[in-house]
């Protein structure tokens, strides 16, 4: 059943793989998973000597880019891999290999990885790099970004922070790893156009393999079927800056259902996400009907620029829909005329050239409650190809049209950045509010919204990750290691806090970055951002659950952390340094 669910979630790619997946990545004939993974030693998730304790194990799952599964911090001292399974979604499909139930790419399991590790140890293959090339995870001749070759990429740092242990660490064996390498074309798109599809399929894969790992433990240890139910902590160090942020997206609802509902044959599942890095990016504002705001678009942006407006939750969908007013630089202000759900309208200039488009996308929140939403997409300010539509750069005006249903409307600009290591000519737009002050009179960054804030529309509060609005996901914020105060970039939740829990990231306010593992064993680099906070929180939650802590929900996690470290009332706890990851 779950294979069909993964296939269903991946349908968009299967119908049109050329957009994201190389043609040779597709599985031409996916099959349901059979029991070979429990009976064939070569297909086992872990070697018998690497199986976790059925009572104190906790699976750590990581969804990221280019996770170095052969790294020494993911091995045990006997040389066995702790990586039970990794799905490399865009690798060339391998007929006859593990993962016949997956729609694309390859699956590598612990025993197979262990075989390569043994060969590297014996010197019959030349080290870790050869493992990535022999397995098909890295092929410089394929038409994709070879991020698996990067010396210190995002996935390497995140995976080791979440799940890296020295091979002789007694905790290591109790933290098997399930990983997903996302296609680089997903990672490079900071707007997350297709991310929900692959993230959903990745979660389904993790659930599937976590359950099968539990069944393998039962089989190998002669335990009753269904008796092993390891908990799982899933780290997703990805995020968006636009969204309803109320948990109403399908992706957020699915994560909430997984965390709250309980999964047959598996323990508690927690999702950990970064709070976000955009507190001071001026990507969030609030206004009422009849108001508008400047929206500055830089030139030479070869990607579209997105902005979402979400109205207040209300009973029923108003008959008179919310409308948006938009003015391109040098152009008249014009107002949409939506009349029905999921409509699209194009903004054209006098010559009929498309400048922008808008979509009316209200959401049903359940119990008769609705939230209206409009997404505005402005064409690139520099077309990617000649003849394609483009829009003028400069200051646009965006507003909620007078006559729209009353209430406060949230504006959120979509992330539109160049991700380190990926070639994409993106440029971030921002909202311009004359009242907003970047610096105070002493030249210091203004880190909080003024109270009171008369006339202020652009806000720092509520700038958190657009994937993290659900009721159950854990949001990790970043403090600096020296002052233990939230870093200026750390986004804010609706209540103004930097996260449900905080972790140390940058070394100091004047020294950006923390030491984190690179791709090769023993290598390291400097990494920054709440992407590095999330895996530290994931690691800590996994350790607590392995020790028997009953962390049923967000409040329990927070209270458990606050009980271990001195925490100011009302402030999020800072995860203790005893998380103690090896930096490289």
């Amino acid at each position, binding site marked *: 059943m779950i294979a069909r669910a993964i296939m269903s979630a991946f349908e968009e790619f299967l119908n049109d793989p050329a957009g994201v997946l190389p043609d040779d990545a597709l599985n031409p004939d996916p099959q349901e998973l059979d029991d070979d993974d429990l009976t064939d030693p070569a297909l086992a998730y872990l070697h018998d000597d690497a199986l976790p304790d059925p009572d104190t194990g906790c699976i750590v799952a990581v969804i990221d880019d280019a996770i170095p599964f052969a790294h020494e911090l993911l091995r045990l001292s006997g040389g066995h891999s702790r990586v039970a399974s990794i799905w490399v979604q865009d690798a060339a499909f391998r007929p006859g290999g593990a993962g016949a139930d997956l729609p694309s790419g390859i699956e590598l399991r612990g025993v197979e990885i262990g075989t390569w590790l043994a060969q590297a140890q014996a010197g019959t293959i030349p080290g870790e790099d050869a493992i990535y090339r022999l397995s098909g995870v890295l092929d410089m001749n394929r038409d994709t970004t070879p991020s698996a070759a990067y010396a210190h990429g995002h996935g390497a740092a995140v995976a080791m922070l979440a799940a890296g242990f020295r091979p002789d660490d007694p905790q290591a064996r109790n933290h098997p790893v399930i990983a997903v390498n996302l296609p680089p074309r997903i990672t490079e798109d900071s707007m997350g156009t297709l991310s929900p599809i692959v993230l959903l399929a990745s979660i389904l894969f993790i659930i599937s393999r976590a359950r099968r790992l539990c069944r393998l433990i039962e089989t190998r240890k002669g335990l009753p079927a269904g008796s092993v139910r390891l908990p799982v902590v899933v780290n997703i160090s990805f995020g968006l800056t636009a969204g309803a942020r109320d948990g109403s997206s399908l992706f957020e609802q699915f994560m909430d259902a997984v965390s709250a509902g309980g999964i047959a044959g598996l323990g508690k599942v927690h999702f950990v996400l970064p709070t976000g890095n955009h507190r001071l990016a001026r990507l969030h504002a609030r206004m009422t009907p009849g108001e508008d705001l400047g929206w500055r678009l830089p030139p030479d942006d070869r990607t579209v620029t997105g902005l979402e407006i979400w109205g207040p939750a209300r009973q029923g969908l108003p008959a008179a829909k919310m409308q948006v007013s938009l003015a391109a630089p040098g152009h008249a202000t014009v107002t949409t005329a939506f009349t029905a759900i999921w409509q699209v309208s194009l903004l054209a*200039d006098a010559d009929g050239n498309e400048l922008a488009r808008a979509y009316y996308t209200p959401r049903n929140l359940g119990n008769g409650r609705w939230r209206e939403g409009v997404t505005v997409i402005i064409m690139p300010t520099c077309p990617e190809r000649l003849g394609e539509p483009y829009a003028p750069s400069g200051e646009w005006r965006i507003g909620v049209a007078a006559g729209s249903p009353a209430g406060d409307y949230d504006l959120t600009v979509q992330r539109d950045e160049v991700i380190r290591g990926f070639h994409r000519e993106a440029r971030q737009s921002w909202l311009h509010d004359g009242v907003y002050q970047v610096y105070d009179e002493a030249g210091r960054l203004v880190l909080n919204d003024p109270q009171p804030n008369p006339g202020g529309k652009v806000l720092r509060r509520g700038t958190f990750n657009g994937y993290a609005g659900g009721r159950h996901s854990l949001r990790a914020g970043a403090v600096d290691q020296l002052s233990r105060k939230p870093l200026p970039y750390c986004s804010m939740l609706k209540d103004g806090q930097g996260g449900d829990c905080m972790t140390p990231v940058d070394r100091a306010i004047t020294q950006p970055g923390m030491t984190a593992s690179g791709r090769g064993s023993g290598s390291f680099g400097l990494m920054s951002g709440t992407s590095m906070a999330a895996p530290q929180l994931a690691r800590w939650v996994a350790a607590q659950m392995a020790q028997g802590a009953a962390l049923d929900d967000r409040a329990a996690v927070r209270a458990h952390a606050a009980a271990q470290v001195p925490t100011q009332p009302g402030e999020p706890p800072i995860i203790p340094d005893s998380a103690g990851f090896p930096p490289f």
Partner: protein
Amino acid sequence: MGAAVELKYEWTDPNQDPRPARWTPPKAAYATYRPGLSPYLHYWQALRARRGEIEPPPELGETAGNDLPAQMQAALEELISRSFKS
């Protein structure tokens, strides 16, 4: 040597009246749910259709998307049922 390209700059008088613009009459973007459905995906598919990489989406009427929220909820429930209730 390639053909010479003449670079032109069109000066805009800041005091002139703003140029006209208009919204096209709204029409439905989707009629049926599909995984990952979003405005961004719709634009991306439209761009790919413009480039001739995929078939253009069918023209839809004004109210063809009215059932999408219900379809999305049903898809979520089916996904939950398929993936971890068994």
